C-alpha cells in the first residue's frame, strides 16, 4: 500500500515565491499545529525509545545487547534480510524490465498482483505460509501421505529435522512476502518514464543485452534501485506480525529482533526491550537519512538530464 507515498518526487523550483499568501497569524497557527502534531506522534516517541533504552545506564544496555538470545536474534534478523532483499531486488529488476521495456496484454493485472502483498495484513501473510507448509497444510498432508513419486522424502526430512514452519525457512519466506513489492514498485515507474530509446540505441550500436543493461540501464536506475533496497531492508528487518505467526518464538533459535523485543517486554524487562528496540530505531533513522540523501542525488541527476 505504500507506492504513492514512497516514490520519488522532485519539487519544481520557485514554489515558495507567491504573490498571494495567508496572513502571518494564519501561517504561524498552521505551522504550530503541524509541529505539535508531528511532535506528539513522531518526535516524542522517538526520543522516548532512546531515553528508555539508557534508563539503567550504559552497562545494562551493553549487557542486554550482548546477551546470547539478543545476539542470536540480531543474527537471524540480518540473515532474513540478507536473503530476502537480494531476491526481491532481482525480482524487482526483472519485473521492471519486462513491464517497462515491452508491451504485452495483462500488464495492469500484473501490476496489481505485484502490489498485493502491501494490502495483505501481516498476520494473514504469516498464516498463508502456515497453511502451505504447516503440519495441517498442503505440504504437510502431502508429505504425510508419502507421495509415491518421492519415496522416503518425508522420512528423510524427519531424520534431518528439516522444518519450514516454526523454523528459519518460514521466517525468511514470510519476510520475502512482506517485502516483495518494494524494489519493483520503485523501478517500474522510473523505467517507464525513461522509455526504451537509450537501450535501443545501445543495441543498434552493437552492444550485447548484458552490456546494454550494465552500461546503460543500471546507471540510469541506480538511485531508484538503491531507494527501493533501503525501504525493502528496513521492512525486512522490522517485520513483526508475519514473522510472529511462522516463527514459533523459540528463544535463541527462531526469535528475530522484533520478536525478541516482544519477549523482553512480556517479561516486564522494559529497559531491555527498549535497548534492543533502540537498535531498530537507529536503523529507522539511518533509513530516513539515506532516503533523503538518495532523493537529493536523484534530483541532481534529474536536473543534469534536463539541462545538459
Amino acid at each position: 500500500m505504500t507506492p504513492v507515498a514512497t516514490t520519488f518526487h522532485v519539487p519544481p523550483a520557485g514554489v515558495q515565491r507567491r504573490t498571494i499568501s495567508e496572513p502571518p497569524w494564519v501561517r504561524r497557527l498552521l505551522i504550530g499545529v503541524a509541529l505539535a502534531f508531528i511532535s506528539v506522534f513522531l518526535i516524542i516517541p522517538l526520543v522516548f525509545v532512546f531515553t528508555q533504552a539508557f534508563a539503567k545506564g550504559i552497562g545494562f544496555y551493553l549487557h542486554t545487547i550482548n546477551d546470547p538470545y539478543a545476539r542470536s536474534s540480531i543474527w537471524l534478523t540480518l540473515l532474513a534480510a540478507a536473503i530476502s532483499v537480494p531476491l526481491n531486488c532481482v525480482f524487482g529488476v526483472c519485473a521492471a524490465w519486462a513491464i517497462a521495456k515491452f508491451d504485452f496484454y495483462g500488464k495492469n493485472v500484473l501490476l496489481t498482483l505485484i502490489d498485493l502483498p502491501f494490502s495483505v495484513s501481516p498476520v494473514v501473510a504469516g498464516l498463508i505460509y502456515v497453511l502451505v507448509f504447516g503440519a495441517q497444510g498442503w505440504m504437510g498432508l502431502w508429505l504425510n501421505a508419502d507421495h509415491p513419486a518421492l519415496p522416503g522424502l518425508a522420512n528423510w526430512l524427519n531424520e534431518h529435522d528439516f522444518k519450514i514452519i516454526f523454523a528459519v525457512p518460514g521466517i525468511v519466506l514470510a519476510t520475502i512476502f512482506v517485502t516483495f513489492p518494494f524494489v519493483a514498485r520503485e523501478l517500474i515507474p522510473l523505467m517507464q518514464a525513461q522509455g526504451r530509446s537509450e537501450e535501443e540505441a545501445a543495441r543498434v550500436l552493437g552492444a550485447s543485452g548484458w552490456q546494454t543493461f550494465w552500461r546503460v540501464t543500471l546507471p540510469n536506475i541506480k538511485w531508484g534501485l538503491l531507494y527501493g533496497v533501503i525501504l525493502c531492508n528496513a521492512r525486512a528487518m522490522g517485520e513483526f506480525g508475519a514473522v510472529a505467526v511462522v516463527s514459533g518464538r523459540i528463544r535463541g533459535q527462531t526469535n528475530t529482533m522484533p520478536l525478541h523485543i516482544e519477549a523482553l517486554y512480556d517479561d516486564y524487562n522494559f529497559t531491555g526491550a527498549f535497548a534492543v528496540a533502540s537498535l531498530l530505531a537507529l536503523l529507522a533513522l539511518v533509513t530516513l537519512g539515506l532516503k533523503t540523501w538518495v532523493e537529493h542525488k536523484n534530483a541532481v541527476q534529474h536536473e543534469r538530464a534536463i539541462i545538459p
Partner: protein
Amino acid sequence: MANDRIKARKIRVLPGFKLTLGFTLFYLSLIVLIPLGAVFWKTSCLTWPEFWSTITMPQAMASYRLTFGLSFCAALLNMFFGLIVAWVLVRYKFFGKKIVDALVDLPFALPTAVAGITLASLYSKNGWIGRYFTHTDEFGQVQSIFSSSRLGIFIALVFIGLPFIVRTVQPILEDLDAELEEAAASLGANRWQVFYRVILPMLMPALLTGLALSFARALGEYGSVIFIAGGIPMKTQITPVLIMQELDMFEYGKATAIAVVMLVVSFVMLLGINVLQWWTNRYNTNNLA
C-alpha cells in the same frame, strides 16, 4: 491495437523479454499467488454453514466493527492533520523544515514492534503522556485512558497511517499552478474562498487516495496495536489480533475463515485505490493541459 502489437514485435530490439517476464511470473506465483491460494483451499475444507457461522460469530462481528470504525476515524484525523502538515511543508519556510519533512516517513521506517512498545509505554499510566490522562477503573485502580482501550488502538492507527496523506498530497500541492489562485484572488475571492473553492477541489482526489491508503494500512495492522491495546474479546480485539489468537489456539479453520474476510476486503480496497489513483492522475493531466 492488433496492428500496434505486430509493429512492436517487429521492431523489438531489446532482449530478455521471455526471461524476465518468465522469472517475474514464476516468482510471483511461488511467493504470492500459490500461498494465497492455500487460504481458499483451506476454506473449502469448511462447509458453507461452518464458514458462515465462523465469520459471523459475535466476537468476529465485534472485531470488524472495531477495526473498520477505528481505522476510518484514524484515517480521517490523519487526513485533517496530514493536509496541514503537507501545506506547511510545501508553502512555508520555518526552522527544521527539512528534518520534519524527513521524519514524516518515520512510521514507514520504524518497525511496528518498536512503535508498539513505545506507544504502549508512552501512553501508560506512568508514561510521559499517559500520566496526564488517567481515570479510576471499576476495581479502584488508577489506569491510563489509553491502556487496553479503543483510544489506545486509535493512537496506534493514527501513528502508522500518518505518512500516507502527507505523501500523496505533497506532490500535488507542489505542482499546483499559482495562476489559478491569483486569478481567483483578482476576481475578488478572499483567501479562505480561494482555498475552499479552488485549492481543495484540486486536492480532493489525492486526499481521498491518501485516506484510502491510510485506512487500508490500518485495517491490517497488528504489531503496533497489540502492545497498547492487548486483545480483550469484544472490547479491544481487532480482526488481525483475533486471527492471531485463533492461531495460538490451533484453530486453523476459524483463523482462515476470518482471514478470507480480511483478504476480500483488501482486494476490494486495492481495486478502489487503483481507481482513485487513476482518477488523481487523470485530474492532474487535465489541470496541466
